[in-house]
C-alpha cells in the first residue's frame, strides 16, 4: 500500500479524515 503522505493531496485528505476521527474522540471525552 502506498503511503498517503507521499502525495500532497493524500496528506491533506488524511488530515481531514483525522479531524473527523478526533471530533468523535473529543465528543466521547466530553460525554456527548
Amino acid at each position: 500500500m502506498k503511503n498517503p503522505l507521499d502525495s500532497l493531496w493524500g496528506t491533506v485528505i488524511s488530515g481531514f479524515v483525522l479531524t473527523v476521527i478526533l471530533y468523535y474522540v473529543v465528543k466521547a471525552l466530553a460525554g456527548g
Partner: protein
Amino acid sequence: MLPGIYRWIHILAGIMWIGLLYYFNFVQVAALKAAQADSTAAGITKHVAPRALFYFRWAALVTWIAGAALLGANFGAAFTFQAGYEKIGLGAWLGTIMLLNVWGIIWPNQKKILGIKPATDEEKNKARRVAFLASRTNTMLSIPMLFFMVAQTHIAI
C-alpha cells in the same frame, strides 16, 4: 491585557510557522523536483531553504511558548483534558507533537541535508526521507490542530 498580547503573539508566530510549513509542502517540494531537472536546485537549497528553516523553527517555538502563556493556569487542565478543556487540550497536544517534530526530527535531519552537519550521501538520502515524512506528518496534523484550537470557542461539539 496580557492574555490578549499572548494570543496576538501566538497567532502572529503561528501564521509564520504554519505558513512556512505549507510553503515547504505545497511549493518547495515540487519546486525542488523541477529545479533538479534543470540544475537550478542550488538556488533553493543554498539561498531559500536555510532562511525559511530559520524562521520556521523559531516561529514554532515562539508559537508554543505564547500558547502556553495564554493557557496560563489552565495549562494542566488542557493537557489532561479536564472538563471544558477537551478541545483546546487536543489542539495543544497536536501543536506540541508538531513542535517536537520540528526540533527533534525535521531540523536535525535538515542540518545533514544542508551540509551544516557532516553526513555521507547515504545518510543524506535517509535524512531527506525522514525530514520529508516528518514535514508531511506536521502538515496532516495541522488540519485537526487548527480545527480544535478554533473549536474551543467557536465550534460546539
